């Protein structure tokens, strides 16, 4: 394996982990705030 394979693997793992966490937190927040709004209406 060349050095680039390791570099790509490290960036892919970090990218997936960070974006996954960001999206999961965003969805959780939107869902929770939407449920409050729908109850108020």
């Amino acid at each position, binding site marked *: 394996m060349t050095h680039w394979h390791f570099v790509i693997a490290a*960036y892919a793992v970090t990218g997936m*982990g960070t974006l996954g966490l960001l999206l999961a937190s965003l969805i959780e927040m939107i869902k929770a705030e939407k449920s409050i709004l729908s109850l108020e209406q």
Partner: protein
Amino acid sequence: LHFLANPTRFLRIAKPLTLWLTTIGLAMLLYGCLAGLTQTPPDYLQGETVRIMYVHVPTAWLGMAGWSGVAIASITQLVWRHPLAAIAANAVAVPGAVFTLLCLATGSIWGRPTWGSWWEWDGRMTSMLVLLFLYIGYIALANAERETGNSGKTTAIFGIVGAINIPIIHGSVIWWKSLHQAPSITMRGSAISSEILWPLGFTMAGFTCLFAAIVLMRMRAVLASTKLEARMRRMATESAR
């Protein structure tokens, strides 16, 4: 700090801040990663693998800074009884654990071509693994206390005691013989050439902004759920009358 004790006041600041931190964080991270992959020369010893530094160092910093945040919020919760401190500490734990895991994964990937080994039981890697276990224990304890309706005091004490691991992680490469290099960036300057170092500033700032945005999102989710639960309880009491 007490200015933010009121959840309504906190939300007024947190809502626009979440969007700004996410946008700035993503832009800086994208630029830093692209620059790190295309604009810097390979290292004379490590070759192209030095580029892993631009994602590995920020994840290590956030894993450690995350637990420092947990400890500070726990002290604030116990000493000043700040109403948002426990929520903040719990909101930091999951992203802190994820970034510690990413640090261990990228470090392992970097170790294979550099040291010829995916894993070594040396001071730095072992203390970082201990940090991951501390995060997992903290999350489990916080969930258990929430389910049993406890105040979260035990979780806060665990958060403070666990902070003992942070100086151990920092000192591990100085105190013990390790394959891991000694700190390259200190208060006295950097041992890394500036032509290789500069994208690290962008990825550090980008990851930190995203971490802060994620913590705010998780805090907002908990505040909304708490508000919903309280309102449902009130509605149930009113309909029972």
